[in-house]
């Protein structure tokens, strides 16, 4: 809470009431005749044409899925096809006024939106620009089969390119817009302003907000449209995205030209069903989805319902709403009413709706209706419209034939290039700045920053020359290492922003950001709502558009709150885009202790399990700064674990202390923190210090010299140094604060056993936390691994230690008993 905002009890305790403005519903009432002044014949015909193209494209897919052929061309498409037959007017109306620099995000049912936005962009781009786009996409790989033997105009060629690229993508062809790695539910093409569509319902609900944030913060042209379904309004992350998008601070705290709302339209493609669930009358209570806007901010998000069966009504709404966004009064919520004739998917028997209902909507089919209106108003003849249809059938037939032709549209050759997908999991392209050349906005030179000045007086190594530790307050701590790396990047990369709970003013719950508030304007460092899904989801959208971002979710335990974002979105988009998109997101996650079962968990295994994420967990100031520098220099998503036990720990290992200048520590390299010859202890995170304690005891009591290795990274991880150590010692304990079952320690134990079986004198032994809830601080020693436990485990499982009396039970029968009970 910023101090400038005073909460006056007199004020807030006053009696009163909240009033709402009426929300318009289907207010558009103009006829074609009325609109003749605003649309030329070409414009009207283009609207008709675009709807027909979408209808035919979807009809073709429907026939392929249900009959195995279209227009006598047989094909078997085993993948998904969520069709929007019936929704064409909504899609075309949405895209008609959008510029190329306006971005749309979509859902699993977005073929229509891709085509509508693509056709709109093609209409606006010059021939030269179009050729440039087509030639440069994957070095012309998608374009090559399209342009072969083609004689028509560049615009016609571009339309074919759009049809082919989308279809080849749906059919998983290497020539598709995303090399066939996205498919039907994720296809997109950024040069036409089509951003990722999302197979998770409501997935775009927070990602699109991040894209709008990117446009605002980096002063980029254009608006962002989130096409999400009426049923997705029930999803938590969508609601979180809406709360993020409507934060007061945009208007009340952001300064100068940054003051004002996000350039964002939440466009509810309201086809009135979520799969088979009827959102009005059955699964939701809003009756009219536009009502939601009234609950979010005083502007009610300028919400209204528009008749999505009339393309002109939708276009009219977009023209009006764009004005609101220009005045920085966004975001806007549109409830575009529509209906799909097709089922949720081709396997849907429509058992949840009556035949009469579908027929009633088909009777008001927007394409037939709009065509009739055009003929009646004398805009076009029936013959002209029929010609549009005939040409479209030819176009779609051509597109189908070309995209299923294995010679020109092959699948990825996974036999010849078995690592093709592996090579796309990470972009691995380090960059100082995501927008070189632009000056970062800061409040003062770095050296004037109070925290930077304060750090000058800290001891960058924990011990003096006699080996005596400096006082805690004098020591340069782990949080200082993180701060130095982050502040450095803020002065290098103008796109870098950071946000999360209590990031500004407070300086982060663990004081890593103390000093940043002074250095940065509001739009580069701000407090988010307490909604982890929106914190991570918006960061994903921000990065997709080309920005670098550090979202922070305070406690590791809150990862679950951002489950879909961390597990389904963040890791997937680089590879699913065929490497078109980069994802420079460093998600800071702090592992707690002392605060019980929901604030003390080490969940490193969860992100490490998901392909596409890099995972690190430094335990020293030197490693924290070096790894954070590497994370921020990279373009891949990093889950950056920190531990609340050791934010204040000084540097005890790196000779000369933590360097003042910039340096990187490569991901994946474990570090030997203490050399030894009799036993290896591999530790993850803050457990390092308990491992060292165990090593001391082993030396003092049993004359055994332990080598202590700090894993530092989990993904990637180089096992070679550990194997080298094992060649010496033959014995291994792996320890960390995660509950042992299913932990990354177990993963390491299993991998090392495979890699170095002949070096092992005993099985690698995992010493993790008990498989319980984390108890109160007073009982934590019975839960988290302790130095004693490590020694007991060695005695019991690796080599009996002379005279050792065990305190904890690491015997085989006990292990079996606990597993039998699931504890």
């Amino acid at each position: 809470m910023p101090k400038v905002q005073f909460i006056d009890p007199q004020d807030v305790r006053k009696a009163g009431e909240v009033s709402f403005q009426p929300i318009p519903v289907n207010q558009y009432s103009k006829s074609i005749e009325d609109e003749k002044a605003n649309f030329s014949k070409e414009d009207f015909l283009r609207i008709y044409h675009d709807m027909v193209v979408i209808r035919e494209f979807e009809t073709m897919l429907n026939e392929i899925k249900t009959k195995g052929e279209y227009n006598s061309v047989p094909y078997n498409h085993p993948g998904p096809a969520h069709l929007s037959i019936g929704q064409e007017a909504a899609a075309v109306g949405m895209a008609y006024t959008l510029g190329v620099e306006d971005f749309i995000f979509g859902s699993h049912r977005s073929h229509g939106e891709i085509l509508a936005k693509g056709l709109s962009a093609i209409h606006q781009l010059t021939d030269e620009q179009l050729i440039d786009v087509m030639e440069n996409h994957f070095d012309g790989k998608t374009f090559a089969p399209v342009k072969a033997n083609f004689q028509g105009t560049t615009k016609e060629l571009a339309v074919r390119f759009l049809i082919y690229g989308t279809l080849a993508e749906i059919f998983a062809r290497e020539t598709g817009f995303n090399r066939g790695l996205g498919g039907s539910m994720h296809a997109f093409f950024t040069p036409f302003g089509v951003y990722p569509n999302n197979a998770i319902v409501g997935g775009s609900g927070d990602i699109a907000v991040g894209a709008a944030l990117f446009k605002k913060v980096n002063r980029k042209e254009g608006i962002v449209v989130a096409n999400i379904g009426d049923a997705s309004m029930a999803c938590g992350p969508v609601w979180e995205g809406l709360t993020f998008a409507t934060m007061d601070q945009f208007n009340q705290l952001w300064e100068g030209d940054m003051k004002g709302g996000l350039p964002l339209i939440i466009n509810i493609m309201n086809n009135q069903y979520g799969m088979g669930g009827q959102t009005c009358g059955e699964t939701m209570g809003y009756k009219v989805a536009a009502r939601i806007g009234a609950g979010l901010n005083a502007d009610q998000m300028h919400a209204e319902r528009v008749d999505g069966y009339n393309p002109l009504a939708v276009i009219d709404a977009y023209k009006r709403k764009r004005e609101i966004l220009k005045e920085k009064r966004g975001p806007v919520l549109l409830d575009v009413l529509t209906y799909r004739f097709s089922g949720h998917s081709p396997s849907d028997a429509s058992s949840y709706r009556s035949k009469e209902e579908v027929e009633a909507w088909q009777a008001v089919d927007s394409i037939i209706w709009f065509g009739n209106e055009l003929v009646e108003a004398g805009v076009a003849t029936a013959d002209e419209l029929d010609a549009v249809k005939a040409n479209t059938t030819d176009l779609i037939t051509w597109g189908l034939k070309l995209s299923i032709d294995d010679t020109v549209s092959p699948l990825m050759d996974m036999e010849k290039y078995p690592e093709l997908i592996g090579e796309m999991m990470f972009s691995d392209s380090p960059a100082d700045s995501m927008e070189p050349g632009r000056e970062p906005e800061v409040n003062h030179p770095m050296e004037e920053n109070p925290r930077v000045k304060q750090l000058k007086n800290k001891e960058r190594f924990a011990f003096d020359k006699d080996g005596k530790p400096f006082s805690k307050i004098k020591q340069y701590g782990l949080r200082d290492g993180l701060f130095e790396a982050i502040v450095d990047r803020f002065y290098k990369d103008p796109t870098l922003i950071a946000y999360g709970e209590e990031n500004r003013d407070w300086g982060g719950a663990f004081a890593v950001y103390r000093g940043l508030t002074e250095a940065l304007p509001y739009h580069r460092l701000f407090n988010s709502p307490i909604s982890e899904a929106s914190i991570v989801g918006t960061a994903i959208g921000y990065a997709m558009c080309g920005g670098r971002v550090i979202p922070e979710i305070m406690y590791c335990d809150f990862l679950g709150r951002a489950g879909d974002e961390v597990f389904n979105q963040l890791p997937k988009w680089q590879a699913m885009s065929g490497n078109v998109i980069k994802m420079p997101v460093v998600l800071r996650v702090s592992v707690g202790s002392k605060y019980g079962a929901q604030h003390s968990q080490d969940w490193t295994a969860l992100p490490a399990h998901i392909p596409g994420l890099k995972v690190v967990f430094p335990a020293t100031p030197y490693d924290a700064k070096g790894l954070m520098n590497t994370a921020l220099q990279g373009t891949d998503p990093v889950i950056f674990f920190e531990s609340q036990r050791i934010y204040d720990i000084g540097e005890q290992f790196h000779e000369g202390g933590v360097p003042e200048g910039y340096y990187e520590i490569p991901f994946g390299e474990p570090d030997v923190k203490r050399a030894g010859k009799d036993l290896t202890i591999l530790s993850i995170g803050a457990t390092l210090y308990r491992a060292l304690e165990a090593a001391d005891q082993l030396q003092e009591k049993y004359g055994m010299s332990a080598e202590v290795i700090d894993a530092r990274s989990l993904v990637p991880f180089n096992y070679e140094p550990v194997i080298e150590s094992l060649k010496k010692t033959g014995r291994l304990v792996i320890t960390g604060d995660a509950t042992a079952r299913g932990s990354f320690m177990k993963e390491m134990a299993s991998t090392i056993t495979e890699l170095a079986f002949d070096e092992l004198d005993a099985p690698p032994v995992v010493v993790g936390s008990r498989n319980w809830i984390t108890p109160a601080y007073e009982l934590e020693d019975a839960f988290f691994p302790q130095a004693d436990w490590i020694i007991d485990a060695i005695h019991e499982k690796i080599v009996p230690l002379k005279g050792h009396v065990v305190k904890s039970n690491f015997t085989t029968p006990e292990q079996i008993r606990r597993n039998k009970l699931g504890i």
Partner: protein
Amino acid sequence: MAIPVIMPRQGQSVETCIIGEWYKQVGDQVKAGDLLFSYETDKASFEEEAKEDGELLAVFFEEGDEVPVLINVAVLGQRGESVDEFRPGGEQPVDAAAEAETVPEVEAIPDTEEKPVVLSGQPEGNVKISPRAKVMAEKLGVPYGKVQGSGPYGRIIAQDIAGAAEALPKLTPLAQEKAKAEGLTPAAETTGLGGRAAAENLISYNPVYGDDFEVKKLTNIRKLIAKAMHQSLQNSAQLTHHMSADARQIMALRKSFKKKLEAGEVSQNITINDMVCFAVIQALKKFPQVNTHFIGDSMRWFKKVHLGLAVDTERGLMVPAIKNADDLSIEGLSSQLATVAGQCRKGNVDPELLKPEAASFTVSNLGNYGVEMFTPVINLPQTAILGVCTIVPRPKDLGDGVYGFVPMMGLSLTYDHQALDGGEATLFLKEIKEQIENLTL
């Protein structure tokens, strides 16, 4: 680019081959087609040619090593290229690796008291040993079966092997090798440098013979024969009937064939053995129950006669099969028998033909060596084998009370009583006798 040379696969059943001789040494320049090395399968030997030009960069196996087929044995390429990626993954020669460990079920109580590393007198049941300790024991030549384990649950761990190696007299490298190969231990008195036990100090445990012998490892083929013969006697109910046949007719035929051969009228040298085999085939056609394999709860009755012939070679006994021998004329049979016998002696016979399953009945002829009677061992799963013995003159009633000495050929039929009864076997043997005595060609 460097390319690996693999141990080729000879026949579906061959799993390993033994390297005979390396014709090229590491560092030699090799042309495609040059012979690289010779190798032998269970029963045949081959030579491997280089497939490409290049320098022989590395050789992973020594002469005499047994190598699984399809494993890299060498690398060809340009000088300086890396060969490590081709090195078979820590692959030991099969002999060493084959001594698989079994994990014992014994429950032991962990000992918190450190025990001195002692060599217990006798190996006690199965041995628990860590992978590291096992590798170490092999390297140091420590017979770990006798080491007391100090690890959890009595597991032998690295420190035990280190201790045992200390406790044992140190061995010279040669002695280590010999000790490992022959299961010997050093004597108390040593003569090697620095008090090490030299090879000559190694003793076996037999106090009578001392070391008055040389231990020679069995060749692969010897091992196989040993196994097959032992199994045959263990797994069947064998007994042998003896009978003799009047050999006058067959000797007359042999004389006339020989004359024709010398006169150049025929090209095939038809031997007595060929004729006996021919007679056996005719008998088998009348007794299909003998032309069989006994496989426990059922029998394979062959429609054709696949005749196995025991051939003595330098490498050992081989029994190649002549497929569909009942389709052959005496000339054809003679020619084929001569061909496979020659291939066996040269070592280039098709290994598939040497499998016991390939033949339906076997003939073993020791007549040339003067053997008068013997009990041949059945080549399982065949049900019988005929031993052919030497021809000796025996008195015979020539009619009208006149006795004369007639050349008689001994026949020894071993059969599996599980498959055949004595009556059947006797009638079959009698049929052979009659076929021989009345042979017309």
